[in-house]
Each structure stands twice: as C-alpha cells, then as structure tokens.
C-alpha cells in the first residue's frame, strides 16, 4: 500500500470511489437502521404512552416483552386490512389517472401552437404547490358542499332549473329534472376520492412533463416511414408512440409510488382519516398512545413497501444502468 501512495492514480482507482460513496451510504444506512431498529424493538414489547392501570408499560423495557402480540393485535384490528386496501386503492387510482391524463395531455401539447410556452407554465404550476396547501385549497374552497365552488355551482344550477320550471312552453321539461345534491367529500365513502382528485391534480403535470420530454426525442423518420407504410394517426400512436413511452411511464409510476405510499398530509386534512386511512395514517393513530401497535403496523408497512419496491425496481432497474 505504501509503495503506491504518492499520487498513484492507477492504484487508487479501486479505493477512491468507495471512499467517495462512504458518506452518502453511511448517512442513509444510519437514517434507515436506527429508527428501523427501534421500531422493531418496540413492536415486540408492550409500550403505551399513558396507562393508569399499568404504569410500567409507559417506559420501553424488555421486561414488557409481548412477542408477536402487537402483530396479532394489529392483524385483528378491523382498520388494518381496510388501511392496506385503501392505501392500494389510492396509489393505484392516482397512478392510473396521472398516466392516462399525462399521455393525453403530452400528446396534445407536443406540437407547436400559439402560446404553448404559457400553457406549459400553467400546467406545471400545480406540481409546486405544497401538499398541505393542496389539501386545504381543494377540500375547503373547491370541494366543500356548501361554501366551496362545488356547493356554489350546485346551488346555482338548482336555482337556474327552479327558475326555468316556471318558464312558458319548456317549463314542464325542466320540472322533470331532479334537485341536484352536492357531494360531501369529507364523508366516509367519499374522502378517498377527494384525496385521489387533489393528488392527481398535483402530479399529472409531472407525468405530462416527463412524457413530453420523451415525445420530443421520438424518432421522426420512423414516424415518416410509418406514414409511408400507411399507418393512420391511431396506429402511429399505438405502435410507435406508446412503446416509445414505456420507459418514461415506468419512471412516472416508480417515482409516484415512492411519494404516494407515504401520503399523509392530504389524508389528515381531508377527513382526519375518517373512512380513509392508509397505513401511514393508521400508524399515526396508533402512535397517539399504543406505540407497540404503531411499531408493529410500521413493520407491516415496511414489508408492504418492500414488496412494492422489489416489484418496481425490477421494472426500472434493468434500464437504469444503460
């Protein structure tokens, strides 16, 4: 080792890269392992924040060992399965909607038209809105059944129909119309949809931008060849554009899955988890008192995240190193 020390580039070729990676790897390792270790530990003991009956449970200690008790408790909790289903429902719906909308809009604005730059600026804006503001804005000012735009719009339409019912000649036709009911998005059945709507609004621009960038690199000669071969617009889209977009779609799906699996602020703000818990939110609820159960749920969440991660990384990993 000493022999090669003075400025030896050739020799250090193997060691230097490892050295440069060390800080980042070490930091992330600590960031992952310490909390994970603690969560694992807490998940096997009885640990609550307040207990008048059993004050000894309020400090973490191995003497409160509970084995898989916390896990059993969580599995038997009616909210648990629901939270998993709901997590998947929310993530999958958002992914589906953003990809479809993203492809359509990207194809729409891929060609030059007057004011394209401005449209792009308008489109990109929602992505910069912080999640808390996004939720507050949508649930209060837009989706609120009374005071939000939705309420006002429904009210306005109902008023208009009511006045038309008295109109001559066509009045009978409008009197057949039902009174419109505004939808409350804070209700148990609908709060998940509110979250899906607002997150889709925020992340569609992201999908659009990625797809647009990718479309711009599409091989135009290939398209011209296809036109000469008699391919219509639909065939061009189906057989050239869509396959070209497969990698960007995979990336959009992966990045979004990473962000949406840990959705929290939106759920909290829309309905405080009422009828719309996902796993992170359920953990948060448990953690108000029962740390043991929260930790056990956390371990389940880690497992779920890993399943998703393995699935996604398989999809992306191959193309990453090219």
């Amino acid at each position, binding site marked *: 080792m000493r022999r090669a020390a003075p400025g030896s580039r050739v020799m250090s070729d193997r060691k230097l890269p*490892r050295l*440069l990676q060390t*800080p*980042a*790897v070490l930091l992330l390792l600590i960031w992952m392992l*310490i*909390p994970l270790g*603690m*969560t694992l530990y*807490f998940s096997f003991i009885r640990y609550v924040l307040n207990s008048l009956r059993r004050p000894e449970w309020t400090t973490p200690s191995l003497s409160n060992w509970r084995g898989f008790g916390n896990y059993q408790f969580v599995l038997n909790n009616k909210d648990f399965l629901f939270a998993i289903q709901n997590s998947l429902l929310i993530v999958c719906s958002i992914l589906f909607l953003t990809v479809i909308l993203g492809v359509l809009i990207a194809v729409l604005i891929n*060609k030059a*038209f007057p*004011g394209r730059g401005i449209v*792009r*600026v*308008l*489109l990109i*804006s*929602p*992505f*910069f*809105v*912080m*999640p808390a*503001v996004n939720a507050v*804005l949508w649930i*209060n*000012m*837009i989706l609120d059944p*009374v005071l*939000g735009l939705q309420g*006002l719009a429904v009210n306005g339409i109902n008023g208009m129909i009511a006045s038309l019912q008295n109109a001559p000649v066509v009045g009978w036709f409008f009197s057949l119309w039902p009174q419109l009911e505004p939808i409350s998005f804070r209700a148990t059945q609908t709060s998940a949809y509110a979250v899906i709507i607002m997150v889709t*609004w925020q992340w*569609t621009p*992201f999908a659009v*931008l*990625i797809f*647009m*960038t*990718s479309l711009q*690199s599409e091989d*135009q000669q290939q398209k*011209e060849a296809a036109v000469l071969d008699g391919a219509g617009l639909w065939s061009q889209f189906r057989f050239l554009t869509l396959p070209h977009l497969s*990698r*960007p779609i995979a990336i959009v799906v992966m990045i979004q899955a990473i962000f949406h699996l*840990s959705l*929290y*602020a939106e759920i909290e703000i829309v309905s405080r988890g009422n009828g719309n818990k996902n*796993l992170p939110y359920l*953990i*948060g609820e448990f953690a108000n008192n029962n740390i043991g159960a*929260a930790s056990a749920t*956390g371990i389940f*969440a*880690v497992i779920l*995240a890993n399943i998703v*991660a393995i699935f996604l990384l398989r999809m992306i*990993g191959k193309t*990453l*190193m090219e």
Partner: protein
Amino acid sequence: MAIVAETSRFGKLSRPVLAWIVGLLFFFPIFWMILTSFKTDADAVKPEFLLFFTPTLENYLNMTENYDYWRFATNSVITSVFATVFALAVGIPCAYAMAFNPSRSTKDVLMWMLSTKMLPAAAVLYPMTFLTKSLGVFDTHFLIIVVLMLINLPIVIWMLFTYFKEIPKDIIEAGQMDGVSTWGEVKEILIPLAWGGIASTALLCFIFCWNEAYWTVRLTTTEAATLSKLIEGNRAPEGLFFGRLSAVSAAAVGPIIVLGWFCQKQLVQGLTFGAVK
C-alpha cells in the same frame, strides 16, 4: 415535422383551443386561491362576489401581523437552502464515483438508496421524536436540515448519477492524461460540464424540501417551524376564513411557483430525473 396527413382541422384549430382549456383548468385552483386571498373572509363565501368584489390586502397584512409569517418563511428558506447544499455536497462525490467507477454493486446500492425513500415515515416517527428529544435537537434548524437532506439524498444522488453518466468517459480520461487531480477533475471538468444537471437537481431538491410536510410538522414546535407547519396549524374550521386561508396558502406556495416559472427549463429537465431523453 411536415407530414401532410397532419394538416387536419383538428391540428389547426382544436389543438390549441383544447390545450389552452386544459392549461387553464389545471391552473384554475391556484388562480382561485390567489383571487380569494384578496377577498374579505365574509365576501369569500358569497356567490354574488364570486368574481367581482372589492379587493383588499387585509388578509396579507393580518397574516404578517398575527401569524408571524416571516418567521416561518425564513425558517423554510434557511432549512431548504442548507439541506439542498448539504445534499449536493454529499451527493456529488457519491454520484461521481458511481458514474465513473461503477462496480458490480453500484446498481444495487443505487436501488437500495431509492428504496429507503419508501420506508413509511410514520413507522419511525415515534422513535425519531424520542431520539431527537433526548439528544436535545428537537425543533432545531439543524435537525430539520439534516432530515430534509436525508430524505432527499436518494433522489439527488439518482438524478446526479444519471446526469454524470451522460458525460463521455473519454473526457474524464483526457483529464487524467492531462494531469488533473481527483479534486481538479470534479472542479475543472465534472461541475462545469454537468452544471445544468446539478442546477436542476438543486432546484428540485429545494422544492421538495420546501414542500415537505411530515417531518417538518412533527419534529418542530416553534423555533424551526416552516411554512408547512403554518398551514397545518391554520387550516381553519370548515368554510371559515377562506380569505385568510388563501392568503397564507398563496404566500406559502407563491415563492416556489414563481421560482418554478423562472427556472422552467432546468426544472423540466430535472423533473425527468435525468432518466428520459
């Protein structure tokens, strides 16, 4: 592209109209928020003042006086800037090594880093709170900076890696032949060449830091509380104070949106995470 079949009516007329409608539709909620922020709380919920009203700055004045907006904003700026700087400082050497001296494990390391982002934050919230409180760093700028840096580090490294990979290996080798040191390689060749990519990465990292709303809310009380905390703390009871709420919200997202507009080009490139050409 000059394909004859494209000169249909749709391409000529409907495309721009449709595109504009979509653009305006997506921007509308933000527009609505800004509009509402200039209404009084009472006017904000009255249908007759939907579009036509007497604008007022009352909400913004109220916000700075009663809500201590500037303190939250300053905290947001400080934590986001430093977290971004540190993330780059740690991320650049790492991505550099991975891009130019990849080993067999590089791909796995990269994937593992990304997968740390999938760990549910809620699962480790309690241990984190416990730990930071016992270490005496709870509610400090230091803690928020470190946490923001760590949660964004995987994305930063991944983005930088994809940008660095674009640099031809020949140029780095030419540098080696020309006698640059490792530090010189980074300073003289890598950073100037990947400047666009680094800027995109920094911007995106800054935005993610600014918008972060889990740890910043839960690991602070007052000292290091950011704008996310301000929003969380002030989402008023349903339907009340729309004007005030809009003003706070607009003031929280405004700077970032404006920044985003100005750096649109870099951001579009950055948003693709360097993975789409």
